[in-house]
């Protein structure tokens, strides 16, 4: 009960604080530069230059505290030894270059990067086009979108059951092995099958992200002017030609945004691998490797931070490109 009141009062203070800040700072600004009297025009102009900074201020402050500071701290740690007591220069990075697990993680991340955004976008595009055309399309859409509501950990657990292994003489509780044995095959330890197990993990993320791709692309497809499609039909284009030569090129910008957004999710992939294989059997990825060095056994903050920095450097350019694309789309 005490906890409940603590939560309620935190929310109240937070909300009240925000309102008080925006209202109060705005009022003070208007007192300093009153929008009336002889210099009303000048005052309004000056106040308008200051006002955005007042309103943005808290956001900038907290983003700085929780985003910029950790990055700087990680950078500092990545240049120090395991417990941060001694400066070691780029030793942690040179270690990473030579480390076989790091190499494996980089390779796997690249593989994820190629497969997951491509498949998610492709399936999303197909689903968007097909569900727009059929009567029960909205139900289909909801079903495809539903995995988006499941956390990656939850999805990992669900799919772990699908890949679950039992000996041939036991009842198969894994869906995949059940089907395989029904068809006369032998049950498999799917998650240990190198290199296929990587793809079995990727399917989980494709399953989740297809819904996202579908929703965004469906909206884009609907935004295409109907006349261009009618003109193409009059020009003799078949439905497939209309789709690939008229519709897809017109939503290329949105496809790029979807693709890069999923790419960023993929680069950060952690939960699915953590839950399903924990990086064993050749399925390690950067985020999970970082977690291992940071928090498993004897923590090595230096190496963990170095991996984190590499991950950040990989994501940043795609992020910048993505934001540019989104802005272009908005315009």
């Amino acid at each position, binding site marked *: 009960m005490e906890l409940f009141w603590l939560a309620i009062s935190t929310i109240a203070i937070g909300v009240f604080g925000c309102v008080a800040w925006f209202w109060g700072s705005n009022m003070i600004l208007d007192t300093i530069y009153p929008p009336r009297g002889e210099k009303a025009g000048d005052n309004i102009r000056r106040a308008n230059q200051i006002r955005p900074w007042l309103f943005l201020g808290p956001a900038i402050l907290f983003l700085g505290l929780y985003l910029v500071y950790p990055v700087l701290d990680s950078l500092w740690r990545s240049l120090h030894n395991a417990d941060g007591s001694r400066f070691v220069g780029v030793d942690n990075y040179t270690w990473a270059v030579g480390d076989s697990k790091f190499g494996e993680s980089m390779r796997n991340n690249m593989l994820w990067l190629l497969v997951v955004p491509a498949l998610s976008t492709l399936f999303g595009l197909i689903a968007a086009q097909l569900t727009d055309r059929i009567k029960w399309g909205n139900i289909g859409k909801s079903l495809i979108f539903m995995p988006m509501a499941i956390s990656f950990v939850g999805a990992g657990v669900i799919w772990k059951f699908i890949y679950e292994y039992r000996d041939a003489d036991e009842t198969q509780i894994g869906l995949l092995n059940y089907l395989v044995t029904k068809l006369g095959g032998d049950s498999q330890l799917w998650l240990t099958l190198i290199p296929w197990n990587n793809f079995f993990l990727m399917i989980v993320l494709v399953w989740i992200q297809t819904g996202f791709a579908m929703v965004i692309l469906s909206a884009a497809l609907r935004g295409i002017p109907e006349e*261009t499609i009618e003109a193409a039909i009059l020009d003799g284009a078949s439905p497939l030609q209309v789709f690939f030569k008229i519709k897809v090129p017109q939503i290329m910008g949105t496809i790029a945004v979807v693709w890069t957004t999923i790419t960023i999710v993929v680069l950060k992939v952690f939960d699915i691998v953590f839950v399903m294989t924990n990086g064993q059997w050749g399925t390690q990825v950067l985020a999970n490797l970082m977690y291992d060095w940071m928090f498993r056994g004897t923590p090595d903050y230096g190496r963990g931070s170095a991996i984190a920095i590499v991950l950040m450097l990989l994501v940043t350019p795609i992020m910048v490109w993505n934001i540019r694309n989104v802005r272009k789309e908005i315009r």
Partner: protein
Amino acid sequence: MADLKLADIAKSYGDVNVLKNIDLDISSGEFIVFVGPSGCGKSTLLRMIAGLEQISGGTLDIDGQRMNDIPPSQRGIAMVFQSYALYPHMTVRDNMAFALKIAGKSRDEIRDATDRAGKMLQLTPYLDRLPKALSGGQRQRVAIGRALVRDPKVYLFDEPLSNLDAALRVATRIEIAQLKESMPDRTMVYVTHDQTEAMTLADRIVVLAGGGIAQVGAPLELYERPINEFVAGFIGSPAMNLLPGKVTAVGEETTVALAGGGEARVAIPTRAGDEGMPVNLGVRPEDMFETDGPALFEGKVDLTEALGEVTLLYFGTNAETVPVIAKLPGIHAGYGGRTVRLAAKPEAMHLFHDGESLLYRDGVELPPYQPRVASAG
């Protein structure tokens, strides 16, 4: 080279009938314009010819071949859309070439066709640009070029000029007229709500109203011999004045006593027994002139609009009825508030009973239409 035959065409969405009993023969090489108020179904009719809308009833023949279930691309038609409907990701040349590429034409053939269309429409310098780098008028020309390269038997235009500004509209209208002249054997069907476009471009105008055809005829025929009050009001600007009255004398010419007090002799025959029949006398603003003699209409000018070449006089703008308008040539300063007496020539007036013109009464054999020459008097 292609004639169209629309027989008892109907269109309905569920229980709502949008169009019904549309019968129309369009002969090869004709320029036909569909006009009508918004929602009269003129665009729907065009889209049915194009194959973009299902035909709910009746048959559509092109060159004697039933087209109801033939896909749009095989009907030998091309369409120009109001919104241009250019493919935004393709250059001007690719926009025009798209249909030919789909049809599997050779590269040389495509190049020749697009070059020719580009030259014809003065688009040569823009062939490698994207549509977004073109002005509205240029875009519309590309849309026309896209139809042109396919060399269709029938061109369909769906309000192609309504997105252009006034000056460009006139220029493009003339271009379309010239285009038609250069292809005398191509049939064109053109939808517009702009009567200037209809009057200037059409060989025949089809006036659509209330889901059916009100009248079909040459532009001046519709202007001079409107079949009913709707067509009379729709063709001509400002609209024809309708003055209520009663027939007082019948014969080769009819005398009408107007409710407003005036009297008019109209060159429309009436029969014995028509005396006392309530009619609306139709007289176009531009057919009215000032007179010292017997007046058709007398009233105080409430408002004037001086346009330079003509002056519009408005009578009865305060009343709840439609104001009477007169259009006098030239400049008439200081007419506001003045009382004016107006008359019109007997052959320039129309008579409507129950909304229908007395010219087209049952059993009357109308001589073929001859335009009335303006300088006759």
